């Protein structure tokens, strides 16, 4: 009996019966499952954010809306630079791809820096620590986990940027890698759209 190896041609993406590249399908499924993860954390925040009777300060009493608005805008614009990187790659513009990838990582880093600054302000100046009360815990866990996702995204972006500097490292043929990282990055952005509205703009301190 002869073993026959079926290999996809190198320039042909691997497809399944769904007609969608398996890697892309996997990423969309992963992102879809992340809704449950962040949904739990957002629900936890809603549960405790304005429940009266806790000792210490509530997060909604000390939000700096102008500062967070700028951070949100920065993250939103990083989605633009990400999609421009993807677009540049599809056009075979490697310089453009590298530039926009680096810009996306830089904007993500600015957002993370803002979050570190915000946490520092809350802890040092407002004395709201992780264990101050359940509302504070819920806030730090939710925004902290989102920040962790952003940090992972920045690492992936910088990795792609490093790979792209090697000859043929990130050719159009391997563009799926960039597309998958891009999907992850945009997802992090849409989760922040929800957090910004629900946690920052709609929260009110307990009566």
């Amino acid at each position, binding site marked *: 009996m002869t073993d026959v190896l079926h290999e996809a041609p190198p320039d042909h993406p691997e497809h399944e019966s769904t007609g969608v590249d398996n890697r892309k399908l996997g990423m969309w499924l992963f992102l879809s499952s992340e809704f449950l993860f962040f949904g739990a954390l957002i629900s936890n925040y809603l549960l405790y954010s304005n429940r009266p009777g806790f000792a210490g300060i509530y997060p909604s009493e000390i939000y700096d809306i102008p500062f967070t608005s700028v951070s949100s805008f920065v993250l939103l614009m990083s989605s*633009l630079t990400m999609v*421009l990187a993807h677009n540049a790659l599809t056009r075979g513009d490697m310089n453009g791809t590298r530039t926009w990838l680096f810009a996306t990582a830089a904007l993500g880093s600015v957002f993370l820096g803002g979050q570190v600054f915000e946490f520092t302000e809350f802890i040092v100046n407002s004395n709201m620590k992780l264990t101050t009360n359940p509302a504070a815990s819920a806030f730090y866990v939710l925004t902290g986990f989102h920040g962790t996702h952003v940090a992972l995204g920045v690492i992936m972006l910088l990795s792609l940027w490093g790979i792209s500097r090697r000859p043929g490292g990130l050719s159009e043929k391997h563009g799926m890698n960039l597309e998958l990282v*891009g999907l992850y990055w945009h997802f992090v952005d849409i989760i922040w*759209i929800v957090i910004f509205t629900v946690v920052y703009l709609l929260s009110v301190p307990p009566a």
Partner: protein
Amino acid sequence: MTTEHHHPTPAQYWKIAVLLGVLTAIEVALYYVNLSYDLGSLNAVLLIVLATLKFVIVVAFYMHLRYEKATLSKFFTGGFVLAASLYTVVLAALGVLVIRGS
């Protein structure tokens, strides 16, 4: 890559970014208007509508879901609807789901 679909051009991506920026500015403005004039539940409704609009725009145009096969849309929407339904029930059961602006 998915270049066989007609994705937006860079100029269109920039226009979408401007729209997202404007929507964010409206959200923040609404927050301050509510502080001064207490819009009640209208504030919450408008903010949720604006956030939903931004969410859909990013997913449709930047994540290209509008141009992808229906399979991906079903998976993604299914996950979102599942999560939203589950936590809506949980929060309603716990008495948390009230309009914050009211």
